[in-house]
Structure formats: C-alpha cells, structure tokens
C-alpha cells in the first residue's frame, strides 16, 4: 500500500507520520509537495499536523489554496482515503471536505497532553481494528481544537454516524472534565458521510510505539491497510463506499 503525506510550508508532523508508516507500519510512503498537483498514485493521503503557513489568518486558511488540495478533493470525491490530523483536520474543514470549524481552545491556551478517546464508530476504514466503545490513549497538542458546528450540522453528524472519536475519561464516560478544549459533544474526530475522509485533532502517529507511552494509534494505520486489502480483493471503489456496507463476508 502506498501512503502519500502532504507537505506544506510549516507542516511539522509530516516527518513523524513518514517515520511511523515507513519504520513502524513498514508500508511504502512518499511526501507530496504542496506546489505539485500530483498524488503520485497514493492509495491513502495523510494531511499532517503542524502550522501550515504559520497558521496565519486561521489555521489551514491559506493551505487549502495549494495546488495539491485540488487533487485531494478529486481523490476524496472518488472514494479515496484521506486522513487529516490536527492541522490537517483544520485544513479539511476550511477546504469544505468536512463540516464545521475548529475554534480556539476554551482555555485560550495551547494544550499538549495525553487524552482518552472513545471509538464511536468502528466501521470506518480507519477504525476497523477497534471495537465499539473502546477507550484508547492518544496525545493531543493544539491551540485551536474546539470543534464547532451549527446545531443542524451536529444533528446530521449524529444521524449519519459521522462522529468517530469522542474525548472521555479512562472509563469511557463523556464528561466535561475529559473535554480538553470545549469541543461540542466532546467531538475529537469526525468523518464525511461516505466515511472515506476522517479528520481528528489527536495525533495517532505519536501513539504508534509503546516506547512513546501508547501504541493505540498504530491500529488506525493498520486498519487503513487492512481495508484497502479487502477492497483491492474487489475493485478500487469508484462510487463513494458507504462504510457501513463494507462487505465483511470478504474478510
């Protein structure tokens, strides 16, 4: 499987994702320079964390106009897998690939610490290796992770099971104390209706080796490889794949 990692001026976690995929997951991975409108036939596109364009104006506001983003939009529309992490999630919302917006943390302070996430929806290409309600430990590091959307959009997210991760305590309870930044519904990660585009604030690449304190994040990358294998067994999805309709029999 071939992963493609976008590189914007100011991306910081591109090298961490590259290392996690090449050295830990042991899959093929390339950098995709933002000025080239070419995804080099990547099977998965990762939009990494960092401070693209210095986060000037708004996080991700300027990055979305880079040439590569045009290709990412077409790739996503055709059902290609896109994973936006932290700044990547902000870019995907600014680019209209995911609904809502990421506001400044309620505490107005940058927060770097480990949080507990509850897996709300285990049938997306990114969460096949988790079971429903599983609590995983992944680090966050952001100043603008406070997810916001209008009430009707929130209702839509719930109806289509697009909320993938929620901040909870160690026992999986969705409490205000467990919410690090004031995000609505404790939302930490959502996907689009088709389920092939996921945006999340926590950093799975920082939880990909036990020496770093947790390996819970590696399962996301393994899940993507697994999903691609069972789909390649069929044919690359032309129409957007309704994640719920994954043909589990083929597993």
């Amino acid at each position, binding site marked *: 499987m071939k992963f493609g990692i976008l590189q914007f001026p100011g991306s910081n976690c591109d090298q961490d994702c590259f290392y996690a995929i090449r050295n830990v997951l042991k899959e093929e991975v390339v950098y995709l320079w933002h000025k080239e409108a070419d995804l080099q036939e990547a099977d998965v596109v990762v939009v990494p964390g960092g401070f693209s364009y210095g986060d000037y104006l708004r996080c991700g506001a300027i990055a979305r106009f880079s040439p590569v983003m045009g290709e990412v939009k077409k790739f996503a529309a055709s059902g290609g897998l896109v994973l936006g992490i932290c700044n990547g999630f902000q870019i995907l919302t600014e680019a209209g690939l995911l609904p809502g917006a990421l*506001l400044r943390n309620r505490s107005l302070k940058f927060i770097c610490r480990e949080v507990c996430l509850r897996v709300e929806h285990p049938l997306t290409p990114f969460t096949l290796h988790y079971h429903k309600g599983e609590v995983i430990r992944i680090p966050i590091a952001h100043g603008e992770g406070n997810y*916001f959307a209008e009430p009707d959009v929130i209702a839509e997210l719930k109806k289509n099971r697009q909320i993938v991760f929620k901040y909870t305590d160690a026992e999986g309870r969705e409490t205000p104390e467990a919410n690090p930044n004031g995000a609505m519904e404790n939302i930490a990660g959502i996907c689009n209706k088709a389920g092939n585009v996921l945006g999340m604030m926590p950093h799975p690449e920082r939880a990909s080796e036990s020496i770093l304190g947790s390996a819970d994040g590696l399962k996301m990358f393994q899940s993507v490889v697994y999903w691609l294998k069972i789909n390649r067994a069929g044919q690359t999805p032309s129409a957007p794949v309704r994640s719920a309709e994954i043909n589990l029999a083929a597993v």
Partner: protein
Amino acid sequence: MKARIIVTPKKTVLDPQGKAVEQAIHHLGMECVKNTRIGKFIEMDIEGENLDLTRKKLDQVCKDLLSNPVIEDYRLELEK
C-alpha cells in the same frame, strides 16, 4: 484605493477570547463594559480606479479566504 475589512465571530459562536478580555477590563476597574467581542482587522492598499469591480473581487476574496463563513461575518469598507 484603501480597503478595510473587519472580520468578527458570528453571534452564535462562543468567543472565549472576548469573555477573557472583558474580565480583565473589569479587573482594571471598568465594570461598565459589556459583550466584548474580538475579531480581525485587515487593511490594504489596492491599485486601480474601478471601485465597483474592486469591491466585487474583494468580496469574493473575503468569502473564500479572509473569513470562514461557518463561524465569521465580515464588513468591507472601500475608499479612494
């Protein structure tokens, strides 16, 4: 031409920064200050004479880049 754009958070959106600044102002003794809101101020010079064409183009830039319609409103002032 001189353009001034003011981008403010929508009323429905929580503005923690505005609340924090208001509290700080109260600490400084001005309790009479209410519903403080913080936004962005962007000013620029624009070459060219055609006011209407410039306003139309700038409006589009405001919608696409300078503000995020999901969470922000903007006001555009343009003068010779």
